[in-house]
């Protein structure tokens, strides 16, 4: 049941991505509502899958790689839906739907079984830490999508390239607003999430190792958010903010892969 619902969600995300990609390839002037509707249906199926997990395993899907990735994908999907609600912003789905389909696919490939972690890995504190951190990462994904579209549209407008990107992508200022809002919301969410994680670790483990991969990754991500904020001072702040969001997201993803590959500690962690 859990796998089936997740597979349905994945299928809907992929179809949404295909619909949006097709409309872009056909040089339509705006992303179709169908894409948004399919994403919404996918979110519904995904929510049902996570609910089934909770009912079956009597715990939140926050520990274990598969469940944690699925939760992350779900939060990204919800954030995408909220970001794409206006007609102009639907084009964000071109970037976000493949991204969340990838994350959900990785979750399913890892297996949607809870990790057999010690009892201390459960509890409201832990749940709040993970949920807030997940929300922060989802906001970073939205900032990345908005930033990428902004940079491409900026290039088209500055270079007087009046092709598909010019016609299909939203205007610069709405994209900048979405990216800026994502950073404004994501940074405090991640800050509180990391703070809760730090406090929870000290409470249950009495120490916090600087080489712990989750510490490294969390701080690095926080640094990306801070850099995205600082980039918005001075001239051409919109363009700089978009660039930092895009590069920063890449750094976060690359560092996650590097940490997973090269550091063995904390494998139960996302």
């Amino acid at each position: 049941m859990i796998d089936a619902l997740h597979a349905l969600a994945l299928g809907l995300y992929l179809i949404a991505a295909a619909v949006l990609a097709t409309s872009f390839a056909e040089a339509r002037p705006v992303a179709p509502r169908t894409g948004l509707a399919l994403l919404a249906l996918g979110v519904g199926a995904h929510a049902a899958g996570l609910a089934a997990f909770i009912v079956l395993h009597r715990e939140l899907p926050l520990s274990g790689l598969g469940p944690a990735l699925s939760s992350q994908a779900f939060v990204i999907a919800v954030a995408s839906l909220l970001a794409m609600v206006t007609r102009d912003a639907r084009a964000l789905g071109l970037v976000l739907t493949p991204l969340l389909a990838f994350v959900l696919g990785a979750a399913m490939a890892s297996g949607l079984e809870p990790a057999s972690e010690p009892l201390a890995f459960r509890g409201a504190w832990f749940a709040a830490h993970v949920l807030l951190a997940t929300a922060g990462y989802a906001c970073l994904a939205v900032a990345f999508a908005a930033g990428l579209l902004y940079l491409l549209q900026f290039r088209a407008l500055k270079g007087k390239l009046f092709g598909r990107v010019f016609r299909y992508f939203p205007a610069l200022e709405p994209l900048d607003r979405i990216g800026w809002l994502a950073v404004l919301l994501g940074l405090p969410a991640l800050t509180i999430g990391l703070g809760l994680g730090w406090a929870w670790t000290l409470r249950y483990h009495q120490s916090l190792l600087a080489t712990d991969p989750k510490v490294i990754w969390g701080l690095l991500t926080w640094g990306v958010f801070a850099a995205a904020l600082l980039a918005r001072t001075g001239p051409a702040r919109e363009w700089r903010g978009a660039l930092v969001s895009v590069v920063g997201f890449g750094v976060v993803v690359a560092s996650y892969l590097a940490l997973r590959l090269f550091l063995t500690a904390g494998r139960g962690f996302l």
Partner: protein
Amino acid sequence: MSVSVVGISHRSAPLEVRERFALPAGDASDVLAELLAAGCSEAVLLSTCNRTELYVRAPMDGTDAPRLGARALCARSRMSEEDAAAYLYTLNGTAAVRHLFRVVSSLDSMVVGEAQIQGQVKEAYGRAAGVQGESNAAGPILSRMFEMALHVGARVRQETRLAEGAASIPGAAVELAGKVFGALADRRVLVLGAGKMSTLTTRCLHEHGVRGITLASRSEERAREVGRRFGAEPVTFDRIAELLPRADLVVSATAAPHVVLTREMIEHAVGRGRHSPLVILDIALPRDVEPEVGSLANVFLYDLDDLSRVIAGTLERRRSELEGAEQIIEDGVREFRSWYRARRVVPVIRALRGHAESMRQRELERARRVLRNLSDEEFEAVDTLTRQLLNKVLHSPTTRLREAAAEGRAGEVADLACYLFSLEGEQDVSSDRSDRAGRETDNYAREARHRNGDGK
């Protein structure tokens, strides 16, 4: 089909000829009334900057409605019919219907996909509808034709991409600015110059909800005049340097033979802590803005060539939509022809049902005299039974008559029906002289729905 169109358009005549035939809206009722008095059954006048056309319908008494229309147009243009023959075109029957559908869908416009023609046709139809008081000059046939045309035009715009994108310099200017800022309503716009292109662009911006427009011109009077029309604040040219830093969008279309906006001026405008982008549309010839301005960070500079490329892209996309639009138009033409044919059998169907109902009433009266012991309720049941039986018996012939009409066999099948059912006086169904037929079609449809409800 006795509808025709006679007229002149940008395809058949140069501007100096078209302007002689252009008729102001106030003259429409006189022209239409004259045509009706001269013998036309129905008439609608469409006069825009690119065409003047008369849609007419003749009764079946040999009246040459297109000739009457041509005569009316020539009389007002003060051009002889012989001279006008080189420019006037006449289309009859299905060709006239198709032409109107194409006109409304903007396929016959100078710029394919332009939006104004739909409203202009709607206004022309509305004027014709008010000419003769309760009955209208448009009549049942042209009314149906124009209503279907407007429906087809709306379908073309909704189901194809024919109306998308900018197809004019002002439109392309607004589209480019919109791609930087999104909504333009709250933007501050500085327009330089008060000539034709500036005025058109100012109007276009105003139509898109921009309210913060400042218009700078060397001629204060001209700036005031244009400003008054579109709510723009008129200023003198020497205030440009002061206004530039506050502007989000600059539209420059002066007649100056030299550069008006230098790189230094723009650098000063975008410096000093300004964070938002500046869009400059240089639609003057020769250019008003130094090209090097385009290399400044956060400044977007577009000239006439750039706007022309935007327009070219739009027109190319619209051309790719023509096939889809033509298909919708052909569907509309087929639907109109089916309706037109079906209406020709309405008098026969009415006569058939009337004849059958008369027979039923006579038999009911006879039965009432025999069945004296039946109560009122029981007799009402007998009435209902006979009515339902009659509806069921007549359903098939009625349906077959309408189907035959849609297939173009109205005449032969209607004649046969009249012969079989002894419907005297209804055999001349090929005649269009019944102007009641269109209204009868609508009344018949209402009655059919009522009967079907009773028949169940």
